[in-house]
């Protein structure tokens, strides 16, 4: 996924000289190619994220297309007010990339972990929110964000969970992607980012007919498709590496409750910070998002229906 991000940034930078890549002193090796290929379009704004976002707003106002990169704990969380007032209020075409979302920085602790970013950014008017699951979705999301005339928050979580898709995808903004469809499924799994792979793994082990959808575009989302999924399912499980408050699970529940109310299980982060240090897999376990805990929760949910 990180190679795909680097490639997409270089391709955009070479195509459009208005692209400026701003980083808050993050992304060490990630930008080697961009710095070599688009030297004049790279700005390290220093460890000063609030200024970086205001700066991006000024640059966008003068006709540039800034891409602001940081860890998602900082972009958009630390700078949410700058995103809201300086950029989103005036619909400036700034792309915010929040890297390392969820528990990627498992060993570093709460300052670098980010499980509230979707909720916060979803609530900012004019701001789109994308959350790709693999390199193909990432490329599609970045290209879509570039086409947009308004700001986008692009959330990048655990980057090495493997491909969900076999080929590059080409879908309209807002559309959900059908990862798996079955003829007689009563249940649907809807997932985003790193948890799409988990949803697939759980469905494989259950070995029953389940439709699986990936959601790279969280806002705006194609409401009609979500309503159809709710209409055609007896129950839905939503998977995300994000707080259960305000993320994808909340979004699907909001749409379902006003169209076709059905039972929804949220596989998400409970309302708590991480307690211990450990590997990514360890942290998933602490938060009940590891495969075995998720599988047990889903089994129990489906049995109780």
């Amino acid at each position: 996924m990180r190679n795909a991000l680097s490639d997409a940034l270089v391709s955009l930078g070479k195509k459009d000289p208005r692209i400026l890549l701003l980083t808050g002193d993050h992304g060490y090796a990630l930008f080697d190619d961009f710095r070599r290929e688009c030297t004049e379009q790279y700005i390290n704004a220093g460890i000063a994220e609030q200024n970086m976002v205001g700066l991006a707003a000024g640059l966008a106002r003068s006709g540039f297309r800034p891409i602001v990169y940081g860890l998602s704990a900082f972009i958009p969380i630390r700078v949410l007010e700058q995103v809201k007032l300086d950029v989103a209020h005036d619909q400036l075409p700034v792309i915010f990339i929040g890297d390392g979302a969820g528990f990627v920085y498992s060993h570093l602790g709460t300052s670098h972990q980010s499980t509230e970013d979707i909720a916060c950014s979803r609530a900012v008017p004019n701001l789109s929110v994308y959350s790709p699951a693999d390199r193909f979705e990432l490329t599609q999301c970045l290209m879509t964000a570039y086409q947009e005339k308004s700001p986008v928050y692009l959330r990048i979580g655990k980057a090495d969970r493997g491909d969900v898709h076999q080929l590059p995808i080409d879908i309209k903004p807002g559309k959900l992607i059908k990862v798996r469809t079955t003829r007689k499924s009563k249940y649907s799994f809807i997932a985003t980012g790193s948890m799409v792979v988990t949803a697939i793994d759980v469905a494989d082990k259950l070995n029953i007919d389940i439709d699986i959808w990936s959601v790279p575009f969280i806002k705006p989302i194609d409401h009609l498709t979500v309503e159809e999924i709710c209409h055609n399912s007896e129950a839905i499980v939503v998977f995300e590496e994000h707080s259960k408050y305000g993320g994808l699970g909340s979004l699907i529940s909001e749409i379902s409750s006003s169209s076709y109310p059905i039972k929804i299980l949220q596989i998400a982060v409970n309302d708590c910070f991480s307690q211990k240090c450990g590997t990514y897999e360890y942290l998933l376990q602490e938060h009940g998002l590891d495969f075995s805990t998720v599988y047990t929760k889903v089994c129990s949910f489906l049995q109780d229906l």
Partner: protein
Amino acid sequence: MKFDPRKIRKTVLDMAYAGSTVHIGCAFSIVELLSVLYRNYLRYPENDPLNKGRDYFLLSKGHGVMAQYACMLELGWLCDDDISNYFSDGSNLKGLSDSRIPGIEVTSGSLGHGFSVGVGLAMGVKLHKTGQKTYVLVGDGEINEGPIWEGALFAAHHNLDNFMVIVDENGFQAMGSTQDIIALGSIQSKFESFGFEAITIDGHDEIAINKAVSDLWRSNKQKPKALIARTVKGKGVDFMEHDNSWHYTRLNQKSYQRAILSIDSGNL
């Protein structure tokens, strides 16, 4: 004379009285600064506040926006109804600056935002090589905000000599004097140590303001500029001067009339 400070202050009073609003004192301290800038420096080709070749003026201390509205009325960007209907339901002009009004570049009120946006605009101008100037007016209380100093480091590092910050040093912030709340020391030294070229002047002396802005732009040092303007909160109305309660006090008929009288009889 265009942008006559007395006329601007009277328009501010008209608005504040019509809308029964606050923030009169912090509008009055920046009147002469705005007069000189709009009269002598800010270029708006075809008098168009959205013209792409314009200079940028960002009122980062959005609380003083009534003084800017008064200037925009003189420019013909606002009309008398905007003044008399201030704060009426469905009206456009808000109590803090809002970028959706042509002529106002940033949405402020939450402080410390305009500085960085101005730095971005100044950098954009440099990259485009189009030559406009960027002015950001901040309050002395506002420079408590961290992003001001993040932006100052960045502006100096990138030699943005087309960027000028103007500090309205009126010595007060919402709840009291800057000295008592967060003492600022020498603002000029602070900006100089951040790599700016800085001058301190009497912010109500139009000749001094004019000369300082001119001197700063004429300097061949490739540094961003800081103009520290020593001002009086509530300037122009005798019973408002140095009285911080006019940050939040509203006018009634009596105080409105007394204020107008004070401006008419003043020595400004």
